[in-house]
């Protein structure tokens, strides 16, 4: 034993683990892609990818599956961030379904998510023949995610089989796949929500302003505070919009993402709020309430 000390904070340990994972994918896969959701977890993941290859650039593009119903501020942030940091950005959408009028207000969250998110994602992965896709999911988010491997095998139909996962030991990842199969890789698996916020604060990582409280026009729909983000929101709702001090704990499609009343305008205040109020973050996501074990079902079908 050496007399010196080599203390390692949990954030540095998690950072080292994530960078190792990201590099492993770059080294072993021909066509990797990083799925970019524009949320805070994605922002951390993208930052880690920048770190992994500095002073060079990551050897893969970012891909955003645009459901066409994202918050406007997300799209603005996406475009400015990727431009500023020199990322190659692919944006894919299910335009056919969109032209056919599919949307959360008219078709409900299940149909909208199936077509505009899951199908759009699978089509895009097939289109570019990506065989490894990074996602920003964390194991502490949701019960079925807690059991998923960091390198998560998907069959030809992009399906996850929770009962037939490859053993994953140490930091040795089995990256071998046959043609048509793929791996989803979750470099943030071991990060918690608090870790993510701390890292954003420590590293001064830019995030979408929607995370911070501000006066915004919101409408209460089925117990959720929905932002009146554009005039695709039906008139009957829009006319009920009221200005409230709110922020968003997660970001997705604006009609499916509830705001929380808040005065937290800084990361410190957000963390304080997170630790004193005790609702876990996914409760503001409308899509989770569809059916029992619904996230597990979506994962099996290929959604992250």
């Amino acid at each position, binding site marked *: 034993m050496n007399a010196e000390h*080599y203390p390692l904070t949990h954030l540095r340990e998690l950072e080292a683990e994530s960078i*190792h994972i990201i590099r492993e994918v770059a080294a072993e896969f021909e066509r990797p892609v990083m799925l970019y959701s524009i949320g805070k977890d994605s922002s951390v993941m993208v930052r880690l990818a920048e770190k992994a290859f500095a002073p060079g650039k990551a050897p893969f593009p970012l891909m955003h599956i645009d459901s066409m119903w994202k918050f406007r501020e997300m799209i603005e942030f996406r475009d400015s961030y990727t431009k500023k940091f020199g990322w190659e950005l692919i944006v894919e959408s299910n335009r056919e379904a969109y032209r056919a009028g599919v949307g959360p207000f008219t078709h409900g969250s299940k149909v909208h998510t199936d077509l505009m998110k899951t199908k759009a994602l699978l089509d895009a992965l097939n289109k570019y023949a990506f065989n490894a896709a990074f996602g920003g999911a964390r194991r502490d988010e949701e019960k079925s995610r*807690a*059991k998923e491997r960091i390198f998560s095998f998907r069959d030809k139909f992009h399906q996850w089989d929770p009962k037939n996962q490859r*053993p994953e030991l140490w930091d040795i990842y089995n990256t071998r796949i046959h043609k048509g199969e793929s791996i989803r890789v979750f470099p943030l698996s*071991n990060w918690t929500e608090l870790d993510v916020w701390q890292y954003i604060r420590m590293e001064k990582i830019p995030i979408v302003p929607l995370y911070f409280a501000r006066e915004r026009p919101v409408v209460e729909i089925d117990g959720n505070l929905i932002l009146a983000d554009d005039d695709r929101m039906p008139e009957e709702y829009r006319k009920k919009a009221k200005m409230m001090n709110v922020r968003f704990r997660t970001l997705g499609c604006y009609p499916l993402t509830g705001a929380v009343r808040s005065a937290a305008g800084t990361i*410190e205040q957000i963390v*304080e709020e997170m630790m004193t109020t005790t609702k876990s973050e996914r409760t503001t996501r409308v899509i989770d309430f569809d059916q029992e074990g619904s996230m597990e079902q979506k994962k099996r079908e290929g959604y992250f």
Partner: protein
Amino acid sequence: MDAIGEYLEKDEQKDLLRLLTAGSVDDGKSTLIGRLLFDSRKIYEDQLDALRRDSKRMGNAGAHIDYALLLDGLKAEREQGITIDVAYRYFSTNSRKFIIADAPGHEQYTRNMITGGSTANLVIILVDARTGVVTQTRRHTFLASLLGIKHVVLAVNKMDLVDFNREVFDKTVAAYRHFAGSLGMPGITSIPLSALEGDNVVVKSKRTPWYEGLPLLEHLESVPVEPDRNYAGFRYPVQYVLRPGQHFRGFCGKVAGGIVRKGDTVMALPSGKISKVSRIVTCDGDLDYAFPPLSVTLTLEDEIDVSRGEMLVHPDNLPEVNRNLEAMLVWMDEEPMDISTPFYIKHTTNTTRARIDSVRYKIDVNTMKPSQASLLALNEIGHVYLTAGRELFFDPYQTNKQTGAFILINPVTNNTSAVGMIIGKIDVKDMHRQDALAVLDLKQMGIDRKHYPAIEKITEELRRQGVEIKLILD
């Protein structure tokens, strides 16, 4: 700075403990984890709400909240009432962050305990105070020792059901120590507790005045993990070569052992070429030194060729460099071992072919007795001889987990068929000579002489790639 800012500054400095919980289905393992999460106030309110709803519908813990439901996430498991795969849980206290790998205790799922335990600093082995040390306790302890987990907590649970009787506890601990001692397990800490009622989980129980040690959580907070890392021999498997332009060539990797400093003389394996570390690059600026498990990028003073799968080391502290090795192998595949399969071996960042030359013996995980075997089936553990397609740079697993561990991948199904822990190199003379090399007797195969030059050329090419084939020409 405001209070929360100060809190965050302090919180950022916490270190991380990874722990594995092992126990039988009925030992109350999930209840214990639920209790740790609950009592450390990290279970969010709505998760609790969902839990209360679920408990009413299908719980089996009587009037108590069924903590197990919180953990057994997947539908299939909820129906069966058992945990079937490793689940990871996160919580933190004022002094440390924790990652729990919750591994199932069921016999057929040994592979999941191995999976959950590979990165653990500490293992909690649960026993039921009423039954004491049982077969599964032995199995889990053996697996923990095989994985080289440095800290063991023997949690004697359900003390409430034996009236917190000291003799029961002492007897269990004595029986456990007797058996664990034979495995050479390091520090064992034994704690009497009741996960269901919370005794000695977070706070010391008034019902065990005879117990002088710490409650479980305080013990978990105080176990030192920093000295467990290997700081002795510098090992740097090159993961990725970074060439953003003509003027920069960096070798990306994670330090797998030892400490590297700017200016250190390093040797590249297998070439044996020597250079000096000119920079230790990170995105946030150069470092003077790096230690495990940091991910960094090294640049060297000389233009020597190093690729992924090769290793940088200090020339005065070399790993073994060999194609022939002996290892403990845990079979993870439903399909039993077929010794003729040309597996892929993934060891550090190096992937090559590997062949299992022979199974020396297998070990019964319940009795720890060796027995003759010619192959291994799911969940079986054996001592094997292996030959890799090219040289590996390794250390015994018990010296360095990072450079002593490997996986075997089936080339047809791509399954991770087995995982291994290296014991050491073997001299080829220890193996059956005819097993040592693939042999092609061209004459016996009735191949026309005119094809010999082409076959020799291919063999030569394969040798360059690390696959040795012996040709018999006449």
